[in-house]
């Protein structure tokens, strides 16, 4: 059996023939944007939250990243955040709210607090819930109706997805990171290559990644169409979880470890689909287009619509290049950008900030570029400040903010202006994603930092060897 099979099978409450399974959910994470209508639904039916102790909430999407003591300017956002506070109070849910010292992006704080554990089923009304699969959980995004279902029953109706092994063998070269692995995968399989599947990332390159790097990869599984991405738990995972606030302690820890060690995919287990990437050959990646599958090596050229495989691909490329205002065959290296965003549930953890800071140290970002560094949680913010990273960022001329989703989704006032170009460490380059009319190039924190210094899209490898 695969890791996925084991977790799935263990959580089936009811399986009737030709019907979706009733699947038990171990952990339900809630945020302000996709939950208000679900709570209203409960109220309308006179229902309670079945297991409030398995439900945790935070405010991340709309929260300002400037001085949090200032009143929130956006009336609607303020109302939505207040609504979550009221809902949590009424239904008895623990909230990592506005003033909580451990609040942060939901997919950052879940693992950070030790809530996310191997073998769990985890859901949240947010597609990047796939992040938590890095710890060997089956974690996926759901809609608001499903949020209501889980609140009321702790269960979901789900059709069993198929399995897809993504094997990454070899060793990453200097300047190449986890973000480049996932962008390279997406460039290979496209944004629907994983639809109706769950990825399991395997191979020596994956095994050698830190927990934070694994989260970056699993985070973007949804960009390949897979609702979930998983990595078998190992000593790296156990070391990461040990001692965290909600991690099992003492005897419960030993029991959990024994169970978690049973989870990895058995030798000889088969997947419905598989693909292999060679880590030795990977280079820093960057996207040129309006979906995350439109990625090229940093030294590559923007494709020519004329070379599209069929009419619809040609059309899509033409539309993309028009929106991005790029020419076929153009190299992205050296292209001036207006904004660099380092943050989001993909790349806002300590390693990401440390990598960016290692390049910024003793240097200045280009005066033409606005650089925003947004830590994934308040815990990360404090840790970074203890390590002096905030001073490095500020001295380099970057803005050091409070935690939140920020410019990844542009709901909190941090946004691109129409026509601006950004290199962003976030997960989506869809039209207008970072602000109406804004244009996004997705890349790793290293590439983003190198670009910030140069003021133009840069190949970090040339800066490391300097």
């Amino acid at each position, binding site marked *: 059996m695969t890791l996925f099979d084991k977790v799935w099978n263990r959580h089936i*409450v*009811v399986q009737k023939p*030709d*019907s*979706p399974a*009733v699947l*038990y959910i171990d952990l339900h994470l809630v945020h302000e*944007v*996709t939950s*208000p*209508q679900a709570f*209203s*639904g409960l109220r309308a*039916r006179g229902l309670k939250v079945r297991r409030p102790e398995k439900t945790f909430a935070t405010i991340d999407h*709309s929260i300002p990243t400037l001085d949090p003591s200032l009143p929130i300017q956006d009336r*609607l956002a303020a109302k*939505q955040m207040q*609504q979550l506070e009221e809902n949590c109070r009424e239904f008895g849910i623990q909230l990592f709210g506005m003033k909580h010292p451990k609040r942060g992006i939901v997919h950052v704080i879940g693992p950070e607090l030790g809530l996310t554990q191997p073998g769990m089923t985890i859901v949240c*009304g947010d*597609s990047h*819930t796939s992040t938590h699969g890095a710890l060997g959980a089956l974690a996926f*995004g*759901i*809609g*608001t*109706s*499903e949020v*209501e*279902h889980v609140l*009321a*029953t*702790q*269960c*979901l*109706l789900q*059709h069993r997805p198929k399995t897809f092994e993504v094997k990454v063998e070899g060793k990453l070269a200097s300047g190449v990171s986890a973000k480049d692995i996932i962008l390279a995968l997406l460039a290979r399989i496209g*944004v*629907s290559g994983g*639809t*109706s599947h769950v990825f399991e990332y395997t191979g020596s390159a994956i095994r050698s990644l830190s927990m934070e790097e694994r989260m970056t990869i699993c985070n973007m599984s949804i960009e390949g*169409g897979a*609702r979930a991405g998983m990595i078998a738990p190992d000593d790296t995972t156990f070391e990461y979880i040990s001692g965290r606030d909600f991690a099992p302690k003492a005897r*419960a820890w030993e*029991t959990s470890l024994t169970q978690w060690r049973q989870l990895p995919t058995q030798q000889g287990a088969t997947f419905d689909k598989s693909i292999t990437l060679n880590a030795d050959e990977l280079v820093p990646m960057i996207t040129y287009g309006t*979906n995350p*599958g439109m990625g090229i090596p940093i030294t590559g050229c923007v494709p020519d619509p004329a070379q599209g495989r069929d009419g*619809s*691909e040609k*059309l*899509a490329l033409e*539309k993309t290049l028009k929106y991005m205002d790029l020419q076929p065959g153009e190299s992205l290296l050296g292209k001036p950008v207006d904004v660099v965003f380092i943050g989001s549930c993909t790349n806002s953890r300590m390693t990401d900030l440390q990598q960016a800071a290692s390049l910024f140290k003793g240097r200045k970002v280009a005066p033409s570029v606005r650089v925003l560094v947004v830590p994934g949680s308040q815990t990360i913010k404090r840790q970074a400040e203890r390590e002096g990273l905030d001073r490095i960022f500020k001295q380099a001329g970057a803005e050091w903010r409070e935690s939140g989703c920020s410019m990844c989704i*542009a*709901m909190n006032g941090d946004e691109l202006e*129409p026509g601006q170009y950004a290199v962003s460490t976030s997960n*989506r380059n*869809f*039209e*207008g*994603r970072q602000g*109406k009319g804004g244009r996004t190039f997705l890349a790793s924190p290293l590439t983003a930092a190198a670009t910030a210094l140069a003021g133009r899209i840069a190949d970090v490898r040339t800066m490391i060897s300097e």
Partner: protein
Amino acid sequence: MNHFPPFTSRVIPLLTNDIDTDQIIPARFLKATDKSGMGNHLFADWRYNPDGSLNSTFALNKSEYQGSKILLTGNNFGCGSSREHAAWALRGFGIQAVISTSFADIFRANALKNGLLPIIVDAATHRRLRVLVEETPAMELTVDLATSTVTLPGNEAVQFTIDGFSKACLLNGVDELGYLLNFESRIRDYEVRNSS
């Protein structure tokens, strides 16, 4: 009683591949705390000019498609975020069925819970529909969920695939939460078995 009766409508062509939910409803409209009014923001950045006026070249705004209930889209419709607001916006605008060769998983699940039928057809059928609507913009299709068919002009019925459970839920007006609540004792048994 059939909760999803057959209907006939013109077909709005929106044939871009990989239309993501950020296009269906941009994130700035997700600050609402109820479901109403989402239809006004459907495809907001494509449907409206920067000054707020209607973009007359956009398919949804064309006079021949006013009141149409069917959207014909490119592959992999609804990819990206999990926002159910996308389904609410389409329904709010009056769309009852979206035809594509494939849908993103979360969007598809959300659509089905809101009486929005995702119709999956094979590539050949998709090409035919595309040609038909390009040649005859006023072409009408009849969608009949009970028989899982789309009827083309000339009375030719094309079969589409939908899983039996989803179909039964739509036809019988089954509310999934009600269905789940019926398993209360099984859920309790599961919790007892798995409590350590």
